[in-house]
């Protein structure tokens, strides 16, 4: 076990380093003048002399490896440049937007877990009967319907027609309140902060703005969990110990709940941590549709306007989270399933 953990822990920084190099080498596609924009606070200040100075200072016309070295040094110092679209430093932008995205993904992952495992179990137990057919129909619709189409449909109904739920992260009144002195930010998660400040109105407003994007994320991602749960349950249901349990005269509900589900959950649990980060890819579109001020919307805006520092910061952040979650998932798997550990 220790050897396995050590190996994973050593892989982590290596892959992270590879990720930074890959991202950085992509900037090699751009001319040096464009690369200079990373270090620019205000485009209006730009003069030809300043441009030459920036190119010289950051060695922007040097070969790739030299540039990478100087960029990496800045990165380790926590300096990722200035994001034009966010109008703040990239590190600050990440801090601001990541909490919004985190809140959204938490609101999506909880229903994904419960609905996914529940429907997956039902689907396996009632294989080929109507509950299974219905669940599979739901699942395949979920991953065939594009997030942006479903999101716009949801807005059409709940915002355009009913007028109850809208885009954004909070309403105008809440915006005024949370940026006044009467509101203290503890976690950056609006739902948690509002409760800590005893502002139920803000809490309700935040929840109202989370319902639609979280449901859209959930609908798109729950299908995969349903499928994995179903496959895993079916595999376990065919095993000998199930027959033994039934032959002993145990009630079917007990066999499923106490025996089969427990074993079937091993791959499922590890998948949830992966799912969590897959959502971080999903938020790119969902946040754009709902104009939700998270890391995904920022990344897309940065890409549209060629805000190079923003694009780099956003993608670096996504990739590092992704790598981290992959490692967590692997380790969890090894902890729960001894066959992985000893199979080395």
């Amino acid at each position, binding site marked *: 076990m220790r050897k396995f953990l050590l190996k994973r822990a050593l892989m982590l920084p*290596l*892959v992270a380093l*590879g*990720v930074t*190099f*890959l*991202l950085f080498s*992509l*900037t090699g*596609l*751009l001319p040096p003048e464009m690369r200079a924009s990373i270090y620019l606070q205000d485009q209006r200040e730009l003069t030809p002399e300043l441009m030459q100075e920036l190119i010289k200072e950051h060695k922007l016309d040097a070969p790739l490896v030299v540039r990478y070295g100087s960029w990496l040094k800045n990165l380790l110092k926590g300096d990722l440049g200035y994001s034009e679209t966010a109008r703040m430093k990239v590190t600050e932008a990440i801090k601001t937007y990541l909490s919004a995205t985190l809140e959204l993904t938490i609101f999506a992952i909880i229903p994904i877990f419960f609905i996914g495992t529940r429907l997956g179990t039902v689907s396996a137990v009632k294989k080929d009967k109507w509950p299974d057919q219905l669940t*599979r129909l739901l699942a*395949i*619709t979920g*991953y*065939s*319907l*594009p*997030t*942006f*189409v479903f999101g*716009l*449909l949801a*807005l*059409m109904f709940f*915002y*355009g*027609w009913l007028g109850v739920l809208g885009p954004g992260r909070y309403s105008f009144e809440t915006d005024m309140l949370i940026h006044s002195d009467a509101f203290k930010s503890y976690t950056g998660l609006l739902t948690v902060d509002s409760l800590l400040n005893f502002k139920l109105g803000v809490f309700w407003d935040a929840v109202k703005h989370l319902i639609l994007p979280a449901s859209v994320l959930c609908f798109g991602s729950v299908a995969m969990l349903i499928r994995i749960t179903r*496959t895993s349950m*079916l*595999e376990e249901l*065919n095993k000998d110990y199930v027959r033994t349990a039934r032959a002993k005269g145990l009630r079917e509900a007990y066999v499923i709940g106490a025996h089969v589900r427990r074993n079937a959950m091993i791959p499922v649990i590890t998948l949830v941590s992966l799912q969590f*980060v*897959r959502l*971080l*890819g999903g938020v*790119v*579109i969902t946040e*754009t549709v709902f104009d939700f001020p998270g890391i995904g919307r920022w*990344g*897309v805006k*940065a*890409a*549209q306007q*060629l805000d190079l520092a923003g*694009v780099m910061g*956003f*993608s670096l952040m*996504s*990739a590092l989270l*992704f*790598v981290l979650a*992959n490692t967590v998932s692997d380790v969890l798997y090894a902890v729960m399933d001894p066959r992985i550990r000893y199979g080395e």
Partner: protein
Amino acid sequence: MFDERTLKRFRKSKASIFGLGLIAAFLLLALLAPFIAKPQGSDPYQMPQSGYSSEPQKPSAGKIFGTTESQYDLFYGVVWGARTAFKIGAAVIFVALAAGLIIGGLAGYYGGWADEGAMRLTDVILAFPGIVLAVVIVAMLGPGIEKVIFAIAAVSWPAYARLFRGDILTVKKQDFVTASRVMGAGDFWIFTRHILPNSIYPVVVVASLDIGSVVLTAAALSFLGLGAPAGYSDWGQLVAMSRNWILGAAGSPFAYWHTLLIPGGAIFLFVLAWNLLGDAFRDVLDPRQQ
């Protein structure tokens, strides 16, 4: 991998037949596009515009799907969009599969540092959520169909390389390969005559079933404004054009439903068809689910 029994099970699944039928219909639409919707300008992929008002028009006798923002003809866009979808899907799969086969093949056959290097490269690319890396690449290259194709291929090939490499590793250890080597066969002969025929089919099947998800990603990029140029017949762009109109007009919230539902429905049906086919294949081939 396709014995008689597998094919029989496949034919019995109604969902797969439905999926196959849908794909055939879309393919027909794409092939016959010049006859179904006559091109008017010099570039057939450019949607014709009737007028300059930005407000979409409802479906009518002359324009059966109506027009979307800036008076682009929706029927024309949907028909030629099918062609765009197949074009992007086929091109991405071709490029990604070629890259995956070459890199995965070299890694699997030669092993050693070639394998180590190739696999670490796939590690790094797979460390990104696909859409994120695609967004970054398109941002660097600028929008355009060819760039979208390149970006999606660049994030898709590692999966094929890994799958192919794994299959090669299994085949490489078989006795007939050793026998051939003992008889003095060279690398090229062994690879093309013995290893390739025994390892290429799974990865080709997996890749071709990915056309649906490739088109979905391309549509998403277009929706984000990072794909097709303005006016290009592309379903994702048509959905993006509906964004300003989803709230409807005063007193009639669904006044512009057609701008969203028609192109959105086209993407949905296209992706659904490929997913139905893919699911059927997996169910049929996965012994654990029997």
